[in-house]
């Protein structure tokens, strides 16, 4: 028995250590590196890369945000909180955050409720169910930019099918400017967003509902509990852990929404549909405000981190 083997065994915790203890009696073949550090070798490359995208942007943004760099002017002098004060006064930033919140606050509940209703619809035996489910999943797996492009074609005021269908109901041609008119841009974005991601909710909730213990719901019905009572007292609590994660994943995606807005309206008309991600993109890559964008990036990371931490605690995901 070599020292390195003992090192590995003591490095392991409780159950693993006792389960692996038989293995520690085996001699390490000559010429093989001692495996005391084996567990660390395994994580080093991954952690290094994660730090590159996790920690580096955070620190670098923080440093740059205290300077006043633009793409044209390399002014490395310390600028104090100038950028953060400017951010605070930037009405366009707050509006973009508001737009993000509006889109999230409307799209997320609709996706959740429609997804849940759809899951209920397909929960019981329905011949051909697998075919329906396979077709319904299509929107969710295509690229968001392709989804946006597709709806751009659908929304075309003259050659798009949507205005044609609206025209059938209206009884006259309806050349609605979906991606331009201030009254229609939000419905257009929301329609595309909801179209793409409701199937995501549907799929996850269908699986969650299928796993609900049938004997519990049946017992509740025998005890005389109505449909809604059974749903809220038994079904909802048992699907909640899964539902919470689905909400979290979608909520975070919505908070960083970029692709479909870029494809449909690019933030327009004016800045009416500009979200936080779109605005940061404009500042950084069209107006070349390096330090200002860095401050904004830092603010967005801080806001989202706070949101995630709050959500994880609130939903009881931390265990």
């Amino acid at each position: 028995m070599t020292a390195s083997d003992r090192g590995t065994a003591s490095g392991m915790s409780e159950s693993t250590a006792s389960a692996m203890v038989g293995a520690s009696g085996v001699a390490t073949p000559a010429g093989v590196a001692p495996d005391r550090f084996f567990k660390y070798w395994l994580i080093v490359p991954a952690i290094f890369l994660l730090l590159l995208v996790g920690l580096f942007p955070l620190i670098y943004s923080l440093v740059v945000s205290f300077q006043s760099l633009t793409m044209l002017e390399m002014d490395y002098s310390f600028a104090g909180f100038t950028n953060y004060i400017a951010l605070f006064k930037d009405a366009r930033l707050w509006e973009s955050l508001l737009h993000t919140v509006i889109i999230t606050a409307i799209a997320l509940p609709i996706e959740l409720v429609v997804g849940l209703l759809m899951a209920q619809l397909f929960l019981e035996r329905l011949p051909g169910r697998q075919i329906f489910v396979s077709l319904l999943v299509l929107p969710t797996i295509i690229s968001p930019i392709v989804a946006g492009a597709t709806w751009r074609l659908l929304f075309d005021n003259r050659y798009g099918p949507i205005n044609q269908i609206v025209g059938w109901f209206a009884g006259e041609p309806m050349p609605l400017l979906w991606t331009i008119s201030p009254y229609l841009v939000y419905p257009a974005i929301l329609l595309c967003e909801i179209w793409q991601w409701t199937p995501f909710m549907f799929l996850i909730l269908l699986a969650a509902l299928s796993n609900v213990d049938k004997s519990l719901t049946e017992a509740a019905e025998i005890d005389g509990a109505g449909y809604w009572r059974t749903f809220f007292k038994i079904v909802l609590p048992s699907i909640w852990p899964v539902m919470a994660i689905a909400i979290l994943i979608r909520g975070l995606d919505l908070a960083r929404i970029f692709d479909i807005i870029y494809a449909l309206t690019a933030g327009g008309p004016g800045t009416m549909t500009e979200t936080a991600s779109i605005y940061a993109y404009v500042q950084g890559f069209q107006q070349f405000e390096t330090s200002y964008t860095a401050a904004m990036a830092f603010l967005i990371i801080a806001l989202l981190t706070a949101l995630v931490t709050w959500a994880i605690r609130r939903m009881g995901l931390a265990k």
Partner: protein
Amino acid sequence: MPLMRRPGTVLAMRYAAAIVLTIFFVFPVYWLFIISFKTPDEIFAFPPVWYPKSIQFANYRVLFKDGDAETVWNSLVLAGVSTVIAMALGTICAYSLVRFKTGGENLAVWIISQRMMPPIAIVFPIFLLYVFFGWVDSFHGLIILYTAFSLPYVIWMMRGYIEDLPLELEESALVDGCTRWEVLWKVVFPMVRSGLFATAVFTFVFAWNDFLFALVLTRTEVVTYTVQVTHYFGGQSNFWAKIAAMSVLGTIPVFFAVATLQRYLVRGISMGAVKG
């Protein structure tokens, strides 16, 4: 028998609802596909042509002739290579987290929290870094970023699959004199084969579907199909056929990819919250 009739009516209504929903969710995809097969006259017909008279591939031929279809190849290389690297690094990391409890619960939570990082906030500092290194518009630059961005997902998913494995086989392999690397390679990897495959497909699809990173970090050399689609957006609708054909080229591989893993679909998109 009225009792028999009622379930029949209910079933018919459920079918009606299912069909309406399916039409709503499938029609846009259908529309995208048929535009790619339409002639310009059919695309710009008023009222719209609901189905093309004949299927023709001229719109695709243009993309291949002009070299625009190369962007699909770029996407394939970027997503493919980054997936392989992320799977390799992510799986061994997950193994370490599960078997040796490396870093404890905190490290695992930190890793998954990286998944929640907003891409726009990451890509800006990364862009500045890449400008400094001269990595903008290079394959390796984007591959590194895609790999790093995929890692939390891979680690999280593979952690779940490895947790499902029995310990006995690994133990007996160690007793038989295998090194730890051999155990990983000969015992663990084969046993999580299906999990590896499912996770790899999803990782590939996420990178394949990315737009923002490619938009910021490419210029001419490694433009992906998603960025290429937006190049046709101009003010006029002249490029409809190209938008549709390019989108379809980028969508077909994803359909195939996902069709191969129906069984793992829900586990994959719910990040392991539902074990199928």
